[in-house]
């Protein structure tokens, strides 16, 4: 047994090696990857697991769980990517998930990935991990960024100080991966002399900690080490307190409570002692840059976080993102659209020729291919949009965007972080709603989810561009621009109202790390694109498929394909009084209703009902009615896929329906106002 732990050190925890892996055993070595956000953890995980990875949710949590496996030197390694966390307190769901996994599932090795460019701060997580009962391998990632910022680290010196394997790495260049895998195997099969130095707590609280450990030693749930539970209680950890209260007898709880009340300040001491420990560990191993040496990050940030230049830079950068997206994406989208259209048509012809009943070809080409195909044609636009955003994210820029937008987000009672999911919404509202997970407080997350549908998605923008051009010809540019602005104004206004009167609550803390700038990594960006695109396509494959079949049934029956006599037309005509308040004939109302399935449907429905849109449209609508229609379609209820994820992420039908209902009312009211005022002005 090479593990040392002195009894005088109350925070040391014995290492359990109950699940030893030897060469005969085919059991995999279970490896948990831990690290803070922006540390390249995902890059390392992807390099190791490649296509073997499985993405799901942690049981009962809206936190992504990624697992995968790889083989190294004859051992199978099962990798579990823990959520990115700065520490292991109960401050967030992610932190609870990470520590519960390490304690309850006892992985064979935990890999702590830290940012070599900010060794002091990022070793804090290691200080916490070393107190848990699993051996740790330390990876110093982003050694290149550290060098660029003038920080030199000697890994062997740090390894000697810590007594655990320390591996330098540049994951973006695959540098250090082999050595890390060697170290994992060496720790798992105990060929590495693993003898960690663990942080201790300051003398002021040592006595109370010992008493606490003695008090609750036999009153903690099974896999939890009493020393760790006691330390966490001293830190005021709510999660551990709940855990303890469930199993301990009343008298013990009361006694512990009294002790903790007297040491409420201990949290700072415990954290301070960990940082003091880090200071001792890195003293000999890290050389800092000379004072006054200005790194790349500081130089870029003079502009990018400036209150004026920063905002202008953001506008310029987003301008480039949109220009690229649409310059490359739209032609691709049109090409795919033609491809699907041609395919559907020839399939329909072929089926008719073999003599199938008339409704089958229509179901396949209009219902299936038409519905899902149209959604899929948006994939190129989304790939380009998410790829450009992925570059901005991976270089570290998006954190700056959140910072400069913070002032504006405050008007809605949100802070800068909410800007990031909303930005995704310009691609597709589904990943925008999913992206709200980065926001810590439930209130802000809910508010962001409710506002996300007001960000015009790629499909809505496409509809706006096509119809704007058809309806307004030369003035189309102004109209498109004003309507996008209107959406953002309504978003801000609704956010303000909800914050003032409905979702009242304390301003939540804005605390966000600004990572050092670094070169983007292709794999990380590819993964970012893939994740966001899959979120979109999965919905297209399920929810939108079902919904487009329903619409097909309603528009095909009972009139055997004559849309103008179908159920949907009957329904549309019934709503004609509503349409007339906006100057809209019933097909436009039907188009809005089908846009609930997918926003692109607006054009398709009008195309079916009116034939060729270009020449027909301007004759059908007066200018105020045309404007009213575009306003309503931009502000209308989100598509069914977005509603589905709103429910999933808010865990609440009530809020999903409230959010959708508000948009229904707001869009129709604005439409009526636009038409009535417009007609009044033109008529009067």
């Amino acid at each position: 047994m090479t593990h040392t732990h002195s009894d005088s050190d109350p925070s040391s925890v014995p290492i359990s090696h109950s699940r030893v892996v030897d060469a005969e055993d085919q059991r995999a070595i279970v490896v948990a990857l831990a690290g803070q956000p922006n540390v390249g953890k995902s890059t390392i995980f992807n390099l190791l697991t490649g296509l073997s990875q499985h993405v799901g949710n942690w049981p009962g949590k809206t936190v992504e769980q990624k697992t995968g496996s790889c083989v190294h030197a004859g051992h199978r390694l099962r990798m579990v990517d823990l959520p990115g966390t700065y520490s292991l307190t109960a401050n967030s769901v992610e932190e609870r998930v990470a520590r519960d996994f390490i304690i309850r599932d006892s992985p064979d090795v935990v890999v702590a990935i830290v940012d070599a460019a900010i060794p002091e701060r990022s070793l804090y997580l290691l200080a916490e991990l070393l107190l848990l009962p699993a051996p740790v391998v330390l990876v110093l990632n982003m050694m290149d960024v550290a060098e660029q910022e003038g920080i030199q680290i000697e890994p062997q010196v740090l390894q000697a100080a810590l007594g655990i394997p320390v591996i330098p790495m540049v994951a973006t260049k695959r540098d250090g991966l082999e050595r890390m895998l060697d170290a994992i195997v060496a720790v798992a099969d105990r060929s590495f002399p693993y003898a960690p130095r663990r942080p201790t707590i300051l003398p002021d609280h040592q006595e109370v900690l010992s008493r606490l450990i003695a008090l609750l030693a036999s009153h903690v749930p099974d896999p939890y080490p009493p020393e760790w539970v006691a330390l966490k209680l001293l830190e005021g950890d709510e999660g551990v307190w709940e855990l303890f209260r469930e199993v301990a007898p009343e008298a013990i709880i009361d006694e512990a409570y009294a002790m903790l009340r007297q040491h409420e300040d201990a949290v700072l001491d415990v954290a301070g002692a960990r940082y003091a420990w880090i200071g001792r560990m890195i003293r000999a191993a890290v050389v800092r840059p000379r004072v006054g040496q200005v790194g790349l990050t500081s130089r870029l940030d003079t502009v990018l976080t400036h209150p004026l230049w920063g905002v202008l830079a953001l506008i310029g950068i987003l301008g480039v993102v949109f220009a690229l997206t649409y310059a490359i994406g739209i032609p691709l989208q049109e090409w795919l659209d033609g491809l699907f259209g041609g395919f559907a048509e020839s399939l329909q012809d072929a089926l008719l020729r073999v003599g199938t009943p008339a409704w089958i070809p229509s179901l396949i080409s209009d219902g299936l291919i038409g519905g899902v195909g149209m959604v899929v044609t948006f994939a190129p636009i989304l790939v380009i949009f998410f790829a450009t955003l992925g570059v901005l994210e991976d270089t570290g820029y998006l954190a700056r965007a959140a910072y400069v937008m913070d002032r504006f987000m405050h008007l809605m009672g949100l802070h800068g972080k909410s800007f990031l999911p909303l930005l995704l919404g310009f691609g597709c509202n589904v990943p925008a709603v999913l992206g709200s997970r980065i926001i810590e407080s439930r209130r802000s997350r809910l508010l962001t989810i409710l506002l996300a549908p007001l960000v015009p998605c790629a499909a809505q923008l496409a509809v706006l561009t096509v119809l704007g051009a058809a309806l307004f010809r030369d003035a189309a540019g102004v109209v498109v621009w004003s309507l996008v602005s209107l959406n953002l104004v309504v978003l801000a206004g609704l956010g303000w109202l909800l914050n003032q009167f409905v979702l009242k609550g304390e301003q939540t803390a804005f605390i966000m790390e600004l990572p050092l700038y670094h070169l983007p990594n292709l794999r990380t960006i590819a993964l970012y694109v893939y994740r966001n695109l899959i979120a979109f396509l999965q919905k297209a494959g399920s929810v939108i498929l079902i919904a487009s079949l329903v619409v097909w049934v309603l528009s095909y029956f009972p009139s055997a394909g004559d849309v103008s006599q179908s159920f949907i037309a009957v329904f549309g005509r019934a709503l004609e009084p509503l349409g007339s308040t906006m100057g809209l004939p019933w097909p436009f109302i039907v188009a809005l209703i089908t846009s609930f399935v997918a926003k692109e449907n607006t054009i398709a429905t009008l195309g079916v009902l009116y034939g060729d849109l270009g020449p027909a449209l301007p004759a059908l609508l007066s200018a105020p009615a045309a404007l009213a229609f575009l306003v309503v379609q931009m502000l209308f209820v989100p598509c069914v896929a977005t509603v589905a994820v709103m429910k999933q992420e808010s865990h609440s039908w009530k809020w999903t329906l409230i959010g959708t209902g508000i948009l229904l009312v707001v869009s129709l009211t604005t439409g009526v106002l636009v038409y009535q005022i417009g007609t009044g002005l033109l008529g009067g």
Partner: protein
Amino acid sequence: MISLERLHAGDSGSVAVMEGGHRLVSRLAALGFTPGALVTVVRNHGHGPIIVSVRGAQIALGRGEAGRIMVHQKKERV
């Protein structure tokens, strides 16, 4: 003692006291704001969030949060 919110860009100080709920204090402590830690203000425009450098990392803090961190100001500007 002066709150971090009131320091100008370039000023620095060592953390003395943090006010506020346990959750906030615990989060800040994990990020390196512990008594004695040296904090340098990188950006502070008098409105909007500020950026500080602590333990080698750059952290954006809302004004509310910055106002709760009291520091002993260091005389010399860094």
